[in-house]
């Protein structure tokens, strides 16, 4: 996957990823319009399909709301690369089919750089600067869930 980088700091929490005031609406397109609104009002307007978020420690801390990874996914985000993730966000992201990579890429990207990621091989490339990083790929069964678009399609396929 390949996309433009949006860069954020540590402890990006679920309340700024999707504020509580919008959680009554289960329409994912409406939700995506408010993704990251309280942290970066430009994000939802300018994000393009496949864009990649690069962040610091404890990404997704706070609420268990699955709407957080859903809002990012439906806003077009291709993957989140963070130094570390909060526990529930990490599980939710995989379950809804949003690729998450635990890797400190904050030093190798500036906002707007082009990132290229190979999930299976664990390679991340900054196409703008030419720098390359390596991360531990996810276990095969999690990669499979992601490839199928999340736990629901994965489980539905197994039930059929």
């Amino acid at each position, binding site marked *: 996957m390949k996309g433009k980088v949006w860069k954020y700091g540590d*402890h990006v*929490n679920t*309340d*700024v990823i999707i*504020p*509580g*005031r919008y*959680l*009554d*609406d*289960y329409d994912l397109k409406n939700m995506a319009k408010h993704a990251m*609104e*309280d*942290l970066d009002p430009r994000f939802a307007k300018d994000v393009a399909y496949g864009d990649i978020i690069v962040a610091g*420690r*404890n990404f997704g*801390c*706070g*609420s*268990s*709301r*699955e*709407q957080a990874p859903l809002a990012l996914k439906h806003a077009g985000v291709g993957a989140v690369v963070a130094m*570390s993730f*909060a*526990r*529930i966000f990490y*599980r*939710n992201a995989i*379950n*809804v089919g949003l690729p998450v990579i635990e890797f400190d890429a904050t030093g190798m990207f500036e906002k707007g750089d082009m990132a290229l990621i190979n999930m299976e091989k664990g390679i991340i490339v900054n196409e703008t600067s030419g720098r390359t990083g390596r991360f531990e790929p996810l276990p095969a069964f999690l990669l499979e869930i992601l490839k199928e678009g*999340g*736990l*629901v399609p994965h*489980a*539905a396929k197994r*039930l*059929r």
Partner: protein
Amino acid sequence: MTFAQKVLSKASGKEAYPGDVVSAKIDLAMSHENAALVLRSFKEIGAKEVWDPEKIVLLFDHRVPANTTKAAEGHQSVRNFVRAEGLPYFYDMREGICHQVLPEKGHVLPGMLIVGTDSHTTTYGALGAFSTGIGATEMAAVWATGELWMKVPQTFRFNLGGKLEDPVTAKDVILHLIGKMGADGCDYRCTEFVGPVVDAMSVSGRMTMCNMSMEMGAKAGVTFPDERTRDYLKGRTSRTWEPVLSDKDADVEKVFDMDLTGLSPQVAYPHSVDNVRPVEEMAGIPVDQAVIGSCTNGRAEDLLAAERILHGSRIPDSVRLIVVPASREVYLWAADSGILASLVRSGAIVTNPGCGPCLGAHQGLLAPGERCIATTNRNFRGRMGSPESEVYLASPATVAASALKGQIADPREVRA
């Protein structure tokens, strides 16, 4: 073995060690409004019926009564499902906040493995259960199969020595710990709270501790059952239970010994929960709103602590004091005991039991530039309304003292 190992070994039918990934049988599964989201995934998976209707508890607390048409539609979809499935434990919007109602109604017992689609599900650890928050999609899998994959966590033990000096309470202790550890300082760990301070703490205070353990990243927080636990459960459940405790020689990753004698009331500064300082460093900051409530601090002893500060005094007109009892039981107690009337006479606005303004849905949102001190659990940017507003977290006594003074105030100085 640690407490976490014991519960997860029993739930998975094999000896579990930290780092192992086990498929665990769930004893209790809780969802609130987001049951609507669970329901959607449950249907999309193609599941036919829930694994055990007796083990699912549902209720509404985040937006009660419904604050928007969309919220009403969400409630409706869950009600229809409950009726169709014949789920016996559905409290609708009658009873209050999930984390208060489940213990009150006797659903939570020591040693249980509990999951809930709410991050503060860690609260039930106060009764000695292993309890953690999960997402809506994995809850759909739990509804369908009764099982969930879980990683067996390492354990951090907090041995809390000394004695708290009134009006310093559990909230001050947990804020202090979060400040020391950081917002991700206990990531993926089971945090055990033991020692004289915890022994002397009410079940209500232990709930506050376990509730906010997740704000330092904990997967679960626990205080171990004792006579207070037994007293709390008496009359709430007729089921028998055995405490599950960590062994003396259990493999605990780290023990933190702390002496809390002399601890000051603590306040978390915006916009992160670990930005904690003693109240004396922040006294004098003006506030527009004060909130007493939430799954963290909306219980009887919390309202009582606030009333003791406010008793007979009137808050200034420049402050809005919003009191949200955590449950109908708490609400009735406050009404019958006269605490409610006293709070209203002091100028409080008392709302129906529920999550209130904590998560920024309704019942007291903040305008740009406004400042609120609250007994709630998160002070993230925009949490309670405008992203340009500020939320400070503190104990009920500190919030009441601040409401009275119109600025962040030390309850030790305000008390009569």
